[in-house]
């Protein structure tokens, strides 16, 4: 059978519609001969076919519905399908509905779309589409029955259930596919069978996840740019739109569009994390119901115009809205093979707005976005009878515009010409050999910065200067280039730049200034060399890395692995969100097995809020937890990861062990005090709202604080039975002092967990993989990697965490020399603490600290060298010895020591009075108070953050003491300019301070057995 012809949109209003109208006129639900599924979900209940007025025709179309077997599972980086799920497909698209027991992401159960793509579905970029009537956990559908329907060419899946935790509110959904159609039809019905009147919007929750597909709403001032909101302000950002679309920036790209079939608009809100769209918010009395019919269109390619073309065709059928084809050509000034080129979003993209040049940006209605093909041709459907402003974007900026008034006939626009660009041939060598390296492209002056700042698609994601490509995609990403061993030529917007190349913190860096005019071509060779910074017997590891298998990452696997190689990492844990990650095949394909060991792993990421914390009004999740190594099994839901929702950590630990966590495997508490998003705390201790001024509650007294250490019902593990905790997370280390405070708090109370340092990188530009990293003292090697021995060293805390400085600290006692670990030691009276600190010349080490029982007892600041950052000398920063007895307190109480090196500790405060640092001294007046809080969250502490009365007077009092919502941030970096001292580390370290810490030395004194000094020792 040949490829079917393109679908044609065909108007049809036939007998089904007349029958529906008759039934509506009679207000009788019993018009149908079959039992409605909302009434009785058992057996062969009926739910109407969605979008009956919609028709597509083509020749040779097919359709199929099947349960997925081991050999029929779609594959692709973002594909979630597993054996037992249901695949709905036709000659154009593939959709996967997950099995009822295969829950994903925000959904409390299965029966939802988890994959949707064209062709064989490899281009899927959908994370899941749960259904709900609101945003609370009990507003979301939980399906309990799934039925496959084969009605000749019409194939369907019907799922029935109720709102989660509210079985009286029944909900049913029919997914339907027909031959020729560029998407699937969906109808959902829900009835209020409770006694309360409810404010419902029957909606799809399109979980984009961040850093992935970007939603588009054709609403004045919106498009790809959506206002920020919190759970308390979501009603303020609701908006009606004729359709909603989205597209990703990965390769192969895909776009989606939703169109309501039974309403004139979709109502909802949008963000890079989630779009919630459906019926308008409605007061629903008991026994009233809502119906939501929509068509979800899919198209290949990363421009959103592919799906919008379908959406406008559908609206023409349903609402009689005429549309036409706008087309044109984009021309370059000269032929070039440099990347990005025509066809790449970074180089040329077309945005079409309703309005003209005089229309304020906030009043322009964006209608579509298209990408020219390699030949420069582009086309997109737009509504008829309007005036349009067509913008050509290049490197994230509008570079040319055209205005056009259209009627109903297709319009060919005059060609748009791209401005001249510069070309850069880039070669980076490490120890003389071309290599992978990360190259930052930094504007050298304000003029260049202002002329090259850009954003993706006129609004998505953050500003980059220059904007060389989608910040969360492959290279180039934002202002970063991942150089490859092969020759590479890149296009750049003209300007003066500083190129800064790095091969990780233990190699030299290269800096080169260049000035590139339009049409210029330059070759830059950057030389790096490895430096003798690391002691022998140390492996350099990052235990928190994301790739395309995560719902919030779209970096291709090959780029991800090359970025690890560029960072000089030896070991990584592939810790994708809620799916077992593994890069082994990619590492093998790149021939890098001898350079990089991969630990398949998981970041369990609870997303479904539930009320497990006593005396807390709002539902919570348990934060994020990493596990490695885990077996990856693509046939299983979540690639073998267990369900992690609605359970305490102890039960999760049991589940992960049952899923194959090795006996020697590691459980890591991630970013313990890492904030959160949409009410989901990233860290378990923060979710419990612990007060670190109070001692650990060791007995379960029913309090929230007792949850930290209790063994949850049905579990064998306690919530404290993890092995490691992130003390440094993220390249900027914004919250590291909070993580440190929690780690110290537990240590002082005798609960010793290994401290790790990880990047939590999701792409090339959000964080830099390997910054920071954990240095593991182990007797295994990458070439003969023994994961059990490696994990044993991690669990034993034989580690240093760092983003540059390397601390080698040992306690020398007679002939023995003992490094930091979680194994307690009983040193003799003559024991010495020997410390050596090394760092690459570009890494500042301003201070060395000895911390005992949570208090800095020694600071070394004098005599620490500040070598030339671009040189290769001056690696040894400190070498000295301390008599251990001088560092320990009087008496025979247990103690612990941690050595730190890097920048001086900043002045911080605890404004919400929970024992956790939360705010820095941003106004540099020597006092941390409410005037240091960035209340507008604009990255600057200024007058806008004060309270102003109607007379223009600033409030001099500030909020009450210990106000929980009046804090932060800890770190508010001001990016250094290229000419400023310290620019290199500031840039490569994402604005964070240089920092390193050892794991503790546990000093066992007095009665045998180390139990910690207690919280009083710190006071």
């Amino acid at each position, binding site marked *: 059978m040949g490829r079917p012809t393109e679908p044609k949109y065909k108007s049809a209003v036939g007998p089904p519609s007349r029958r529906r109208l008759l039934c509506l006129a009679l*207000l009788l639900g019993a018009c149908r001969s079959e039992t*409605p599924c*909302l009434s009785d979900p058992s057996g062969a209940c009926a739910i109407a076919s969605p979008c009956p007025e919609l028709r597509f025709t083509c020749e040779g179309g097919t359709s199929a519905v099947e349960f997925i077997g081991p050999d029929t599972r779609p594959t692709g980086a973002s594909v979630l399908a597993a054996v037992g799920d249901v695949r709905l497909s036709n000659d154009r698209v593939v959709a996967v509905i997950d099995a009822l027991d295969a829950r994903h992401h925000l959904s409390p159960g299965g029966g939802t779309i988890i994959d949707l793509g064209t062709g064989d579905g490899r281009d899927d970029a959908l994370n899941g589409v749960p259904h709900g009537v609101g945003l609370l956990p009990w507003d979301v559908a939980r399906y309990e029955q799934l039925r496959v329907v084969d009605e000749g060419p019409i194939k369907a899946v019907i799922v029935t259930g109720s709102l989660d935790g509210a079985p009286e509110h029944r909900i049913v959904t029919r997914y339907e596919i027909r031959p020729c159609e560029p998407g699937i039809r969906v109808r959902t019905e829900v009835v209020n069978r409770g006694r309360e009147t409810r*404010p419902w919007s029957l909606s799809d929750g399109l979980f984009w996840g961040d850093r992935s597909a970007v939603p588009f709403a054709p609403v004045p001032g919106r498009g790809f740019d959506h206002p920020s909101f919190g759970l308390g302000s979501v009603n303020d950002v609701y908006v009606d739109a004729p359709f909603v679309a989205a597209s990703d920036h990965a390769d192969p790209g895909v776009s989606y569009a939703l169109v309501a079939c039974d309403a004139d608009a979709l109502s909802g809100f949008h963000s890079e994390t989630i779009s919630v769209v459906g019926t308008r918010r409605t007061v*629903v*009395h008991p*026994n009233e119901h809502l119906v939501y019919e929509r068509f979800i269109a899919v198209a290949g390619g990363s421009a959103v115009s592919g799906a919008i073309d379908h959406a406008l065709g559908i609206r023409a059928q349903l609402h009689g809205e005429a549309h036409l084809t706008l087309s044109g050509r984009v021309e370059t000034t000269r032929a070039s093979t440099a990347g990005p080129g025509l066809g790449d979003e970074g180089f040329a993209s077309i945005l079409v707005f309703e309005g003209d040049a005089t229309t304020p940006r906030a009043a322009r209605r964006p209608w579509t976005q298209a990408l020219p093909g390699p030949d420069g041709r582009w086309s997109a459907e737009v509504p008829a009878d309007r005036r349009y402003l067509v913008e050509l974007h290049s490197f994230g900026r509008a570079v040319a515009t055209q205005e056009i008034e259209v009627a109903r006939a297709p319009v060919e626009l005059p060609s748009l010409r791209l401005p001249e660009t510069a070309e850069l041939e880039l070669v980076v060598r490490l120890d003389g050999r071309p290599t992978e390296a990360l190259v930052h492209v930094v504007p050298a002056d304000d003029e260049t910065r202002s002329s090259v700042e850009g954003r993706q698609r006129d609004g998505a994601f953050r500003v980059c200067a220059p904007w060389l490509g989608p910040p969360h995609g492959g290279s180039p990403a934002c202002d970063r280039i991942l150089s490859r061993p092969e020759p590479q030529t890149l296009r750049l917007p003209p300007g003066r730049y500083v190129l800064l190349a790095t091969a990780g913190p233990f190699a030299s860096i290269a800096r080169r200034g260049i000035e590139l005019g339009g049409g210029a071509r330059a070759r830059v060779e950057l030389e790096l060399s490895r430096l003798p910074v690391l002691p022998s017997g140390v492996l350099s590891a990052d235990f928190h890395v994301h790739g395309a298998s995560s719902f919030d990452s779209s970096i291709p696997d090959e780029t991800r692995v090359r970025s690890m190689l560029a960072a000089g990492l030896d070991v990584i844990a592939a810790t994708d969100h809620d799916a077992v990650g593994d890069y082994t095949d990619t590492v093998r394909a790149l021939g890098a097995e001898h350079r990089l060991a991969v630990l398949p792993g998981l970041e369990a990421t609870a997303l479904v809020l539930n009320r497990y914390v006593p005396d807390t*009004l709002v539902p919570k999740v348990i934060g994020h937890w990493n596990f490695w190594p885990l077996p990856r099994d693509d046939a299983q839901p979540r690639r073998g990861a267990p369900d992690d929702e609605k359970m305490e950590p102890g039960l999760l630990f049991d589940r992960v062990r049952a899923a194959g966590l090795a006996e020697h495997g590691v459980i890591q508490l991630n970013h313990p005090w890492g904030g959160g998003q949409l009410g989901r705390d990233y860290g378990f201790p923060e979710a419990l709202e612990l007060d670190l001024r109070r001692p650990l509650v060791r007995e379960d007294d029913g309090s929230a604080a007792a949850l930290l250490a209790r063994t949850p019902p049905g579990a064998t593990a306690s919530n404290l039975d993890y092995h490691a905790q992130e003390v440094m997370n993220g390249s900027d280390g914004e919250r590291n002092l909070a993580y440190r405070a929690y780690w110290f708090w537990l240590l002082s109370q005798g609960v010793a967990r290994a401290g790790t340092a990880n990047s939590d990188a999701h792409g090339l530009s959000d964080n830099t993989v390997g910054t920071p990293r954990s240095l593991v003292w182990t007797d295994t090697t990458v070439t003969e990697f023994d994961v059990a021995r490696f994990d044993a060293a991690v669990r034993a805390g034989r580690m240093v965490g760092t983003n540059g400085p390397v601390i080698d600290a040992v306690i020398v006692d007679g002939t023995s020399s003992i490094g930091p670990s979680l194994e307690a030691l009983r040193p003799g009276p003559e024991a010495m603490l020997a410390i050596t600190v090394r760092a690459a010349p570009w890494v500042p080490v301003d201070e060395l600290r000895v911390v005992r029982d949570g208090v800095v007892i020694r600071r070394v600041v004098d005599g620490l060298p500040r070598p030339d950052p671009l040189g290769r000398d001056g690696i040894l920063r400190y070498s000295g010895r301390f008599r251990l007895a001088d560092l320990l307190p009087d008496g025979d109480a247990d103690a612990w020591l941690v050595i730190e090196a890097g920048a001086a500790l900043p002045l911080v405060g605890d404004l919400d009075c929970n024992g956790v640092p939360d705010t820095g001294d941003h106004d540099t007046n020597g006092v941390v108070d409410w005037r240091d809080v960035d209340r507008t969250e604009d990255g600057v502490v200024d007058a806008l953050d004060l309270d102003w009365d109607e007379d223009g007077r600033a409030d001099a009092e500030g909020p009450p003491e210990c106000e929980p919502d009046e804090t932060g941030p800890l770190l508010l970096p001001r990016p250094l300019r290229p000419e400023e001292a310290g620019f290199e580390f500031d840039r490569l370290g994402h604005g964070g301070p240089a920092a390193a810490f050892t794991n503790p030395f546990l000093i066992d004194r007095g009665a045998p057995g180390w139990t910690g000094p207690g919280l009083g020792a710190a006071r």
Partner: protein
Amino acid sequence: MIPLLLALVASPAVCEADAPAPLSFEAAALGRPRDTCLRRELALQTAARATVESDDFYGHLGAAALLSGRWALDPELELFADLELLRWELVLSSLNADRLGLGPTSIGAAWRAQSGPSHTLTPFARLTLPTWTGGARGGRDLALELGAAARWQARDRLAVRGTVLVLGRATLGSLAGAEPGFAVVASAGLEWRIIGEPGRGLGLGLDLTAQAGLYDPLDHLAVSPVLRYAWSRLGLELGAAVPVLGEERALALVSLRASWRLD
């Protein structure tokens, strides 16, 4: 207009105007008690309700304007009708929604079955029609109530009263089926005429109303105070209902009713 003119010339019937406050916790205003009087009257009632459940992130505010007409055909038979001219609701949860439109309409008849110097028994029937507008699709309630109101003048200024009714409800136009529901509503109370003559002056009433079976064995038990003032043909009532037992989550209903007797 013609009935109004007829009423103005008609001789007034002797009937003490006392009844529980005409309030209902149900969305379709089902289960409202009524009095034993048969009369000719036009009334305008405004009512408000509030439900605030912060633990459940739920709030429900409502206000309604109800036009009522009663027409005694003779001393034993009255026809009556209630039309919610306007109903506004604001429901707050993670999402907010409001609704403005017509409410339900009910029509009915009451028959004075027994009447003596100190007691009256008035059975009645009421049909509630789904005249809602706005809001969600389908699911409009059609309900029939059958009941009887009784009154006993215990003292010169003190009356004892009670109402019992059974209601049957079916949902029209719902994709979820008719979902029939049944309930028994019973109320009992006292009214003390503080000052004035029978049928006029200031009165204070207190009733207990129980509804069972629509959702739970005990839907609610509510206390309903009412303060009533009547002068000539004008009647004013300020009433409230506060649930004290059962699963009903509304904090209170309040109502202000003005009536003009036409007989």
